[in-house]
């Protein structure tokens, strides 16, 4: 894991060095004078050889310093922390919604395999994976926020307003993100449930005369949900990716919005920082899931 993170950091460093031309000139834009560029080069150590820059950057990284945002004039860590709240709650709610849709529908589809419910739910899963979240967001916003006025159209309350008021702004975005991403969980639950329902202990339970309801909910479901845990890591990556786009549609001041504006302003330290933090979270969540897997499934040994 440490090696992967080191490679991630190296990739992030060199991705920004892929830019054709001088990074300082690119960061400052076309109006910059030669003196401005020289000052920026010196302040970011860009006048030093690349290996020296890289070593310095890694050293600062180890101390938790992601650098200074060029546009926002503050440390990248601070800029990310300020924007974390909407993104955190958005991904959390979306994950909840995705699981509330994906798990029960997946179970039902597996139990009635091949029947019309299964086909309908599997069709829904495929459709969910084909709908762009920004498009669904725009459509639902027109219907439920602009047309019916049930939800705020866009934005996120000031830090001064109560948390509940701020969270109200997240309902529609979370539904969009949750519905679109429930597809993966649905497919995975269905496949896992089908595997378990074909096992010997299920046949034994049925032979003993255990009711079908108890077989499904007690004997099969508990075993089937174990592999589903692993898909949560992948879902997290999808949700963060989806959050970037969804936040832009709904004007939520989250990390996704920060990244997109940083890209448009060519604020490289912010882009680097966001890439690193998100990839780091992804690696960490997958490690936690591996550990959790070990805890909930006694058959697994590493």
């Amino acid at each position: 894991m440490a090696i992967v993170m080191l490679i991630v950091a190296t990739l992030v460093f060199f991705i920004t060095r892929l830019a054709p031309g001088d990074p300082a000139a690119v960061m400052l834009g076309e109006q910059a004078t030669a003196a401005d560029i020289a000052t920026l080069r010196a302040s970011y150590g860009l006048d030093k050889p690349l290996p020296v820059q890289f070593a310095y950057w890694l050293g600062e990284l180890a101390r938790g310093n992601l650098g200074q945002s060029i546009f926002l004039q503050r440390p990248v860590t601070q800029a990310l922390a300020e924007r974390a709240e909407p993104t955190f709650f958005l991904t959390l709610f979306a994950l909840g919604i995705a699981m509330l849709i994906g798990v029960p529908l997946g179970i039902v589809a597996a139990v009635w395999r091949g029947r019309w419910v299964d086909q309908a739910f599997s069709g829904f899963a495929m459709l969910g994976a084909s709908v762009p979240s920004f498009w669904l967001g725009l459509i639902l916003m027109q219907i439920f926020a602009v047309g019916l006025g049930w939800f705020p159209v866009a934005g996120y309350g000031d830090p001064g307003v109560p948390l509940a008021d701020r969270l109200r702004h997240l309902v529609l975005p979370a539904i969009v993100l949750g519905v679109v991403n429930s597809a993966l969980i649905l497919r995975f639950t269905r496949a896992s449930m089908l595997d378990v329902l074909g096992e010997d202990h299920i046949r034994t339970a049925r032979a003993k005369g255990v009711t079908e309801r108890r077989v499904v909910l007690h004997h099969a479901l508990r075993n089937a949900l174990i592999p589903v845990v692993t898909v949560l890591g992948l879902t997290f990556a999808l949700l963060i990716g989806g959050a970037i786009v969804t936040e832009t549609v709904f004007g939520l001041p989250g990390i996704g919005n920060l990244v997109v504006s940083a890209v448009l302003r060519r604020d490289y330290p912010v882009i680097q920082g966001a890439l690193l933090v998100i990839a780091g979270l992804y690696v960490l969540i997958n490690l936690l899931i591996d550990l959790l897997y070990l805890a909930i499934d006694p058959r697994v040994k590493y």
Partner: protein
Amino acid sequence: MSATDAATQAPPAPTRRRAASVIWRKLFGRRVVLVGALMLAIVAVAALFAPWLTPYDPTALRILDRLQSPRGAHWFGTDELGRDVFSRVIFGARYSLMIGALVVAISVTCGALLGLAAGYFRKLDGPIMRVVDALMSFPDILLAIALVAVLGASMTNVIIALSIVYTPRVARVVRASTLVVRELLFIEAAQALGVSTWRILLLHILPNIASPILVQATFIFAYAVLAEAGLSFLGVGVPPALPTWGTMIASGQQFAHQAIWLVVFPGFAIILSALSLQMVGDGLRDLLDPKLRKTL
């Protein structure tokens, strides 16, 4: 792996042809694949024959006709500059599918080479796969955004960025299959006969792992169409002047409250193409899955 069995036993040509026709029938006998393939054919025909199918020039401005709702003369309405949305959606298929196809071609080629190298040469496995793991720990769209930010927003750079994003997926699948095939007897036989490594990789291993690559390619096509639309929507993709489905939704969103069709129809086009590709991909996967093969 019955694919490799078939290769080792080298069945006579007529049997193979019959097997191919059986697979063909089985594939299109599945309703989901048939419907998916038909939908895909519609999109492809629209892309290929766009100039003959469209009643208007997709870039022709008619300010007097701006923001007209869908009706007789303009089936999908007109946009804020009076351009015909139907013509633009049809022409959009060209750009969106071309970008998707090029991303598939590049990422499958690079991913297959990397995956073959990682799976066949033990010493390269560790280094290649760690980089693949690292690249896969970025959410797709985030990595693509960052790459386009650095390279600059243009159609070529969107294709390069998305190819970099999807190459690791192919590499992972190819490596896993290569690890299985390289241990088989016919590879050992080829090595003993002194067949060159390149020949073993490209003529003996690659054809035997073609089915997982094919399945992965259909899914990457769908993801690439969706990702291109997302990038263009965020304003970090293809320049707004090109009528891709993503740029159409992006420029239509500010008029969405009065002209929802500007957003609806390009969105339907994206869903239609992504859905058809996933239906075909799903069908292929079920068909080529060795576990399900026996039932054929």
